[in-house]
């Protein structure tokens, strides 16, 4: 299984390491030609305004949006969640807009309010998942086709809509690969 990791800017190295630990082969995506033959795509954390602009500049925006519409499994963390959202409160920044959710950027505050907290994620089993939230967004509205997978302080922080998976937190920074496995096997349907 070949998973692309968007490498404009952000924590793409950590996602690659987590995916490789799950047995996936990874390719860093910087140009349209890199998109060929992917079984899935990860949009990492970083700055969503930066990533959005660079996707346009390097002509990746339209192909990724079309591949997502055609069912390519895509996993977005933090900035990746913002990129996948249809609505971003108070912002007209570029976004792929594939997922029927409305998000608030930096919803928990600036960096001094960044935090760690254990999350209950029934889809991943009973053990709590270590949530690392860094200038994190949350989802304040989700459409009917969206499955809510985790909630923290009444805010949606993990969700799925068919081929699309998003987290407001950073599983790639934790060494716990359950979210990556969930993406590869449950969302993307790839054999273990």
């Amino acid at each position, binding site marked *: 299984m070949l998973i692309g990791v968007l*490498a*404009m*800017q*952000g*924590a*793409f*190295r*950590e996602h690659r390491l987590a995916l490789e630990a799950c047995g996936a082969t990874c390719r860093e995506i*910087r140009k349209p030609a890199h998109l060929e033959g992917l079984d899935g795509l990860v949009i990492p*954390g*970083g*700055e969503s*305004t*930066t990533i959005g*602009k*660079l996707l346009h*500049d*390097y002509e990746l925006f339209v192909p990724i949006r079309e591949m997502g519409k055609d069912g390519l499994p895509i996993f977005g963390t*933090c*900035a990746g969640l913002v990129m996948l959202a249809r609505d971003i409160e108070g*912002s007209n920044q570029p976004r792929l807009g594939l997922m029927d959710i409305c998000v608030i*950027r*930096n919803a928990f505050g*600036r*960096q*001094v*309010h*960044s*935090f*760690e*907290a254990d999350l209950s994620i029934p889809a991943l089993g009973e053990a709590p998942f270590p949530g*690392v*939230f*860094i*200038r994190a967004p949350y989802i304040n509205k989700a459409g009917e086709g969206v499955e809510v997978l985790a909630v923290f*302080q009444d805010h949606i922080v993990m969700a799925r809509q068919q081929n699309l998976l998003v987290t407001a937190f*950073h599983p790639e*920074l934790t060494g716990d690969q359950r979210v990556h496995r969930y993406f590869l096997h449950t969302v993307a349907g790839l054999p273990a």
Partner: protein
Amino acid sequence: MAETGTWKVKTGLAEMLKGGVIMDVTTPEQAKIAEEAGACAVMALERVPADIRAAGGVARMADPTVILRIMDAVTIPVMAKARIGHFVEAQILEELGVDYIDESEVLTPADEDYHIDKHQFKVPFVCGARNLGEALRRIGEGAAMIRTKGEPGTGNIVEAVRHMRMVMGEIRRLSSMSKDELMTAAKNMAAPYELVVEVARTGRLPVVNFAAGGVATPADAALMMQLGSDGIFVGSGIFKSRDPVARAKAIVAATTHYNDPKVLAEVSKDLGEAMPGLEIATIAPEQRMQERGW
């Protein structure tokens, strides 16, 4: 329960900035230009290093009004500089809500013996280093991100190259040492033993390492990335050049595509004049900012 100011969220923000460019800005307008060009963060200052160097005298933390106006202007993270050892400037910056503090040799040091105890803060710190020992001393004090010192405000990449090569070379040497050699290595580089052991085991710094101090062109940025930088700080290089918008965009592109000469050739075209450069040998040793701090 939610725990703020942890080591993981401090180092984690730096991870999110990787592969990106952090630009010095002095006004909200410049901050917007930087964000629009694709900067992943900005450094809020009253004067860029080239102007600090030209003005002389004592350089201090920026006026909070300047910093707050820049924080209002953009949604990307905003960093600000405190003087080496000036923990009260750092307390003020934390209170303002900046996202990262640069305990920086660009400003005039407030303490010649002691750096700030950075573990006492919830806001993360970045510090400059010329070699691995200096980097690990700063990390030991709580720095969650490291950058080369280079020689700020010169537009001359030679010192940043020297510092990055030094750090990467020392890491490679540590990686090949046997366990019984590591305590002596720690002693010789005056670095915390536990961090020396960790670097020897992992073959990398425990935090993100950016290049800073002399980046003026897209080629400079790509050079530092190919030497092993995780990302780029550009101080005077953008807003002291003839066409800041074009240069900012080009440096962002060169940092993402640092291994692609075709892209580098394309983005290096028609940028207008770079900032005026300074030969390091013409700067008296006591005027060199990299000598500040230890």
